[in-house]
């Protein structure tokens, strides 16, 4: 598999998961940069050019509430999960858990084989 193919598939795989991650992170109030840091600290690295437009799109869909506020000498737009967003997050979380539980056993042989290969190389 080429790097381009891998990048494309990784992007596809991440696209839906990032929405879930952003919705989950915005159960707490965040502005753009603080949200990025929060996700980064949680191990999800997402570049600004993707995150900020994504947050805006979710807000436009009514999944996030937002307001401008002054903070540390600068105005910032704060986002928080809306009622509709909370409902959707609950449904998506259920979907994710089901999918993850189903995927686990399917991915297991691959993980076992990778571990074996690592052992053999080690």
């Amino acid at each position, binding site marked *: 598999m080429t790097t381009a193919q891998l990048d494309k598939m990784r992007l596809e795989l991440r696209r839906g998961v990032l929405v879930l991650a952003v919705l989950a992170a915005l159960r707490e109030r965040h*502005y*753009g*940069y*603080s949200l*990025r*840091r929060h996700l980064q600290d949680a191990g999800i690295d997402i*570049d*600004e*050019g*993707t995150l*900020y*437009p*994504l947050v*805006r799109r979710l807000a436009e869909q009514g999944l996030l509430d937002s307001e401008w506020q002054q903070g540390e000498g*600068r*105005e*910032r*737009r704060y986002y928080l999960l809306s009622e509709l967003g909370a409902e959707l997050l609950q449904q998506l979380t259920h979907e994710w858990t089901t999918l993850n539980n189903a995927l686990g056993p399917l991915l297991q042989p691959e993980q076992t084989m990778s571990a074996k290969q690592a052992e053999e190389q080690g």
Partner: protein
Amino acid sequence: MELVKRYVAAVQRELPEQKRQEIGRELQANIMDQLDALAEQQGTALSEQQVADVLKKMGPPQHVARQFSPIQPLIPAHLMPLYKYTMYMVLGVLFVLQIVFMTSHWLTGSDFGPISFVLGIASGFIEDAIFGFTAITLGFALMPANTRSGQRKSANQWQPADLPPVGAGWQHISLSDVFTDLATYTFLLLIIWFPLWQQLFAGGEPVSSVFTQQSLQLLIWFSPFIVLGVLSSLWQLQRRLWSRPMLSLNLIVNLAFVIILVLLATLGPVLQLDTANWSGYFSPEAVQQAVKRGLLITSLIPGYEVIRDILRLRKLNK
């Protein structure tokens, strides 16, 4: 922070007007937060180069703007098959109409040679095709959103039981084949009947036919088979899948074409030629001979289709 302002302005320029201010304001706030955090981390003010590096990492302004406001395709992806099908049908009909128009024009025009005829069809069709392409594309692009969802709903109303039988790959009838046949049949009908119609119904001056009296008489008797060919093409257009009755009808039409082409080639002269202009280059006999050979060679095409259809019928009977 001049660079940041320039970057935000460049992003704003790529956005729709109603979103520019809001997105620009938020993007600037986010970038400034990031720069402040970076400055705090290193303990000193950022250099121009470091600011440029941060902006570079964000991506080109056009790309960022497209992320904020994605471009809507002119034709939505789910309508693309319908769009292509409509385009094909309309262009096919325009091609047939162009053949009809140019043939009638050719038959009434006195100084209209074969090359002008072909060029006329090509230029006329290109002109019509551009208009058709623009009209269809605009029609689909301006289609209201509720109609688009209606299309989706009707697409969900299909029934598996209505699907055609599996069939082999060759059973699929291509639209280009159907329209080429239709154009040929229309051209032939016009070239045979137009001079007679002019004379009988329009009350105009008798228009001389390109065929000799004997050939014209043969072609008039042959006309029902051409009409049968038109009906066969319309049937193919509707079904788009070869069946036994369709193959049989096509076989009859092609067989009739082989017979008439061979008859025309073997019986006397085929065309009434204005040999006065050509006498310096070709003798009338040489031209008639070339026409006859041309007809015999042309008869190989329907001949091939006759053999092909017999083999296909055998395959279907198995």
